[in-house]
């Protein structure tokens, strides 16, 4: 057996660019993020961001044709980094593609809000793309540290709670 050398906590999945796999990608990231004991809102955020990134790969990267989508989720402390990559047509003008309401396929009734939602729901977003070579989207999110028990707070040792007579 190989020794694991400094391996971070991660999962990698490669799947075909079928639209059914948008839901699969959400399930994978939800299950992986569950170990962070996330809030429902945090979970919704990453599920939505992943859904947008994978949909972009399928709809724009491969134009509905068949190809491979690679997703890697990696955890460092409480920061989750998600990379979604395709080997599709790529994006000539990334800045333009990231504008709210921009869509390269208006006939398909897309809202053009995909990148805007990834930006809003994650802390960081970067997009690398080269026409003819594909697109890689990397996004990070730091999860809050879960509160112990909000209904039964720890006694405050700073002396601000009152009730303690000692100086």
């Amino acid at each position: 057996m190989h020794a694991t050398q400094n391996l971070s906590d991660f999962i990698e999945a490669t799947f075909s660019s079928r639209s059914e796999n948008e839901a699969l990608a959400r399930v994978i990231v939800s299950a992986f993020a569950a170990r962070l004991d996330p809030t429902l809102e945090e979970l919704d955020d990453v599920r939505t961001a992943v859904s947008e990134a994978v949909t972009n790969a399928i709809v724009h990267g491969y134009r509905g044709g068949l190809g491979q989508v690679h997703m890697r989720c990696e955890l460092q402390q409480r920061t989750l980094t998600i990379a979604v990559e395709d080997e599709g047509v790529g994006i000539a003008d990334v800045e333009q593609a990231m504008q709210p309401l921009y869509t390269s396929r208006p006939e398909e009734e897309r809202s053009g809000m995909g990148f805007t939602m990834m930006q809003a729901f994650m802390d960081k977003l970067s997009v690398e793309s080269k026409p003819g070579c594909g697109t890689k989207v990397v996004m990070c999110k730091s999860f809050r540290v879960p509160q112990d028990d909000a209904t039964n707070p720890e006694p405050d040792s700073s002396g601000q709670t009152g009730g303690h007579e000692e100086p």
Partner: protein
Amino acid sequence: MDVKCRKIGRCLVVTLSGEMDHHSASAARRQIDGAFHAEGAQHIIFDCHPLAFMDSAGLGLVMGRYRTAASLGGKVALACVSRQLDRIFTMAGIYRIVQKAPSVEAAVQLLEGGHA
């Protein structure tokens, strides 16, 4: 995802359940447009109560149905919007074109006005 349509007054009430993404949106779109025309409705109400997830594909669907209804002088309302959905709708500025209501009944009131 599951789509159910019924008519109340001149409103087509579309109940969305499950997860709305790019994959499920195209079938939902066909079903809603089919029912809208078959029922001869004027307005569209989306009952989002059982909708567990929605991404920007749902925005595209709502915006497209707004155009369909508006072309016939109709309006669109969103009923029972969860917190996650509300964040997405707000971000997209969708409340500039469609109204939000706490229930389907309130949405019907809103769209039908005094003359039901």
